[in-house]
């Protein structure tokens, strides 16, 4: 991943975002709080367990949830799954970034299948974290609700890798074409597209 995939002049507005952080380690939590404050977030909400996070989310809506995978009792993978299968659209579709430190081999599949939007390896440095937050905000993948999986579509082949990220396959191309800054067609050209014309054979 190239650091240049984030443009230094691009604006990021997180001032009104309600962000929930779930991490049992108070020191890791503190670092995340400082990082988010640097990004412009006003006082993220912090929880130290999955139960506390579920209780918080039953009364408040978060715009983004950052979850550490290694939570005591109910771990982070299970918490993401619980959110995705909660039955409430606000909760089941909330953007989630899962943070993983050391991962047991038995948990690697769970990380892939729990339904998080992105999995970030710890230590989550500011560049990577901000980039993932921006990717989440520009999420182009459809949401899937299947009998054994709920979350963003895991097939990136059809859509290409996230913007700025080099794909793993030789033929991976990102389909991002950016935001339009001038009209591509003038109004008469657009009108013409809607006017049926006799084809000259």
């Amino acid at each position, binding site marked *: 991943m190239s650091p240049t995939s*984030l*443009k*230094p*002049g*691009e*604006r*990021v*507005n*997180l*001032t*009104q*975002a309600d962000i929930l952080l779930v991490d049992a380690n108070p*020191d*890791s939590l*503190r*670092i995340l709080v*400082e*990082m*988010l*404050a*640097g*990004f*412009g977030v006003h006082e993220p909400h912090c929880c130290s367990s999955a139960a506390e996070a579920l209780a918080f989310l039953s009364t408040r*809506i978060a*715009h*983004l949830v950052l979850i550490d995978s*290694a939570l*005591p009792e109910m771990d982070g993978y299970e918490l993401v799954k619980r959110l995705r299968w909660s039955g409430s659209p606000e909760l089941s*579709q909330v*953007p989630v970034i899962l943070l*993983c*430190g*050391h*991962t*047991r*081999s*038995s948990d*690697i599949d769970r*990380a892939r299948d729990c339904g998080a939007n992105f*999995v*970030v*390896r*710890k*230590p989550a*440095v*500011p*560049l990577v*974290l*901000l980039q993932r937050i*921006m990717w*989440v*905000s520009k*999420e182009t993948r*459809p*949401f*899937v*609700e*299947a*009998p054994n999986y709920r979350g963003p*579509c895991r097939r990136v082949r059809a859509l290409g890798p996230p913007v700025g990220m080099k794909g793993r396959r030789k033929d991976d191309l990102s389909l991002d074409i950016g935001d339009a800054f001038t009209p591509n067609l003038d109004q008469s050209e657009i009108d013409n597209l809607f006017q049926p014309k006799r084809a000259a054979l």
Partner: protein
Amino acid sequence: MSQVRVFKVESSLSKLMKKPGGRTVGEALSSAQARVEKIRAQSIERMAEAAARLRQLAVEGRTGDCAAVEALYAGANGIFDLAGHFDMRALSEAAFSLCDLLTAADLGVDVDWMAVDVHVEAIRLLSHPDPKVDAAQLIAGLRAVRARYAPAGETPVKGRA
């Protein structure tokens, strides 16, 4: 018949982030880095305290106390994260290696408590704000211990991004 729904979702985060205002990516990154840097000394002190607790947990863990083994794993995992933020690479690698050792049972290998003790002692030495040890030599020793669980050519199990 099972039903699969595939649909587009526009998150409220996306709508909020499109609003005018906020700061540039450059400003956000430098501000975040500066704020993390401000708590460096305090975090390093906390890491040293966490490292000191590992020794007692290792004593309790070898008696078969599962809660102590879990706490030992969580402690090492936390040190791995914190050390990474402050570019303490040797400490980070030692903590990650200890996590690997403690999860050896997942790979069908018994936990070697002598190897755990060696790691705990190395972490304790490396967590000092100004380590008085040859970190490179210490890490080379830990890698040799670790290699017993991951034979040549096999990559140790690591967290995936």
